[in-house]
């Protein structure tokens, strides 16, 4: 497989090392002269110097072949978006992966169809939620293209919703309960299932409806 990596910081350089170690062909583009020289000493002809949002640099790095995948992991979100757009729209690269540096820019990546993305801050935040579920709601899966996500909610001991049938709950529009796990037993959530304290409920909903869902399932 031929992989083009843009951005020779810690992420890009280590990706290059890992991919080379397992026998893939890699080109790594780095803009900063000092970083480029250090990487070139180590990885030799694999490294190309330049700004990969410049078309001639991308072409020198072999974008026309095209690579099986382009990975944009520079420290600049705008650069990462432009690199992925050029790779896909101009050179027909099938797969791109982009790094999101500032989680507030995630919406722009989603809007412009640059996906999948990886954001260290959001990933760590999700782990914190999982470890310390004090918000009562854990994100399990996000499908930004489809505009849905799957979350897990633990029904607290004194919740108002305990004892209520699912079809009587005032769930927010665009939200559905999928399943209920009780005493280790998993079952698909039906309208006539009554919730109980301690239930682990999976729900599918549109991003942004979490607070409404929390109000229905967690309020006491």
């Amino acid at each position, binding site marked *: 497989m031929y992989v083009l990596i843009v951005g020779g910081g810690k992420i890009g350089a280590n990706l290059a090392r890992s991919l080379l170690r397992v026998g893939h062909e890699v080109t790594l583009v780095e803009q900063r002269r000092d970083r480029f020289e250090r990487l070139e000493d180590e990885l030799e002809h694999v490294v190309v110097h330049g700004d990969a*949002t*410049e*078309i*001639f640099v991308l072409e020198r790095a072999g974008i026309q072949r095209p690579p099986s995948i382009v990975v944009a992991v520079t420290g*600049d*979100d*705008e*650069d990462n*978006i*432009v690199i992925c*757009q*050029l790779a896909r*729209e*101009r050179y027909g690269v099938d797969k791109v992966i982009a790094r999101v540096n500032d989680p*507030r*820019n995630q*919406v*722009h990546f989603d*809007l*412009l169809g640059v996906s999948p993305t990886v954001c260290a801050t959001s990933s760590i935040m999700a782990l914190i939620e999982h470890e310390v579920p004090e918000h009562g709601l854990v994100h399990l899966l996000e499908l930004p293209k489809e505009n849905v996500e799957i979350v897990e909610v633990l029904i607290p001991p004194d919740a108002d919703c305990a004892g209520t049938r699912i079809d009587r709950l005032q769930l927010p529009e665009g939200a559905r309960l999928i399943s209920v796990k009780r005493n280790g037993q998993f079952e698909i959530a039906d309208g006539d299932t009554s919730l109980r304290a301690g239930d682990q409920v999976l729900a599918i909903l549109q991003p942004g409806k979490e607070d409404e869902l929390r109000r229905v399932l967690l309020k006491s």
Partner: protein
Amino acid sequence: MKAIVIGCGRVGSTVATQLQEEGWDVVAVDEKEEALGRLGEGWSGGFVVGHGMDTSVLRRAGIEDADAVVVATDGDNTNIVVGQVVQKRFGIDCVVVRLLDPARAEFYEQQGMRTVCPTSNAIERLTEAVRACDVPQPAQV
């Protein structure tokens, strides 16, 4: 008619003041507060400090009822992304984006973005100026 100019450097500030003179209601946006000084004494339009990638800054500038947006920060890639966000998220048809790199300008123009490339203009003007000089010109090849 309301216009927003994102990036208030030499180019952006002059575009902003010119549009204002022509009767537009103009808000300028720049990361640096000092940029306000470029708009001159007679500036009566709005000025918002912040980055064009920040949608709350765009909202504060009144993007939701803007008729035209000019994107002219000093970063081509920032302009490309902000231009698309303004067009797609806020549904504004008249978005004009300044790009210094002719290659990116040509590509994004093909993708339906209204781009203006001062570098291409300079190249054309400079070449024209040489052709217009009163010196022997090479035979046409």
